[in-house]
């Protein structure tokens, strides 16, 4: 069974640009989660999608947005990039919320976003 896949592995951008990160969940998983992990820090919850709908978002500005497609894959978009956006962005997937509120989440390898 294929795990959660994220692309690209690394992404280098400059301030003010826009970045798009992609995530494919494990087959059968309908929930996708995005987290930001700045260097040496813990995981900060960004966004949660389930069945194509945004269920919840963390304490991040509106320039962080995303969507979930009918095949349950997801994109995270970050507009007007700032230096402090440099971080590892992790995507996770789980079974849907209708089964149980907090299912075990399975993580991808992450996208390292570097802002120059």
């Amino acid at each position: 069974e294929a795990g959660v896949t994220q692309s690209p592995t690394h992404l280098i951008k400059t301030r003010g640009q826009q970045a798009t990160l992609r995530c494919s969940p494990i087959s059968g998983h309908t929930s996708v989660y995005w987290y930001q992990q700045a260097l040496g820090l813990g995981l900060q919850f960004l966004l949660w999608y389930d069945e194509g709908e945004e269920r919840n978002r963390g304490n991040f500005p509106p320039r962080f947005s995303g969507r979930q497609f009918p095949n349950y894959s997801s994109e995270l978009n970050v507009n007007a990039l700032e230096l402090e956006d440099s971080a590892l962005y992790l995507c996770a997937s789980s079974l849907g919320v209708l089964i149980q509120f907090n299912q075990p989440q399975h993580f991808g390898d992450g996208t390292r976003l570097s802002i120059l």
Partner: protein
Amino acid sequence: AQTVTQSQPEMSVQEAETVTLSCTYDTSESDYYLFWYKQPPSRQMILVIRQEAYKQQNATENRFSVNFQKAAKSFSLKISDSQLGDAAMYFCASPVGDTPLVFGKGTRLSVIA
């Protein structure tokens, strides 16, 4: 306010010895899972163990076990017979409000040969 607290930023253990990592949480959910994840230098988050809150029995996965105290909202991880490959960041996670999982800040575990 931090609602998932790992009070030990760093811990070390001798190879083959036992170490316990602490975690406290705060949730108003009545039925939920709690998790410990491991993040080695390769950076992938790996699920170590999970505990169902409605179960009294502590979860066990090989050398990893949990001491779950629901009333105290405490969820510690015990690693027995520590191995060099156990060296990693360990994160506990709990639901908070409308967020299925909120992670603690992590404990960096070093294993000394």
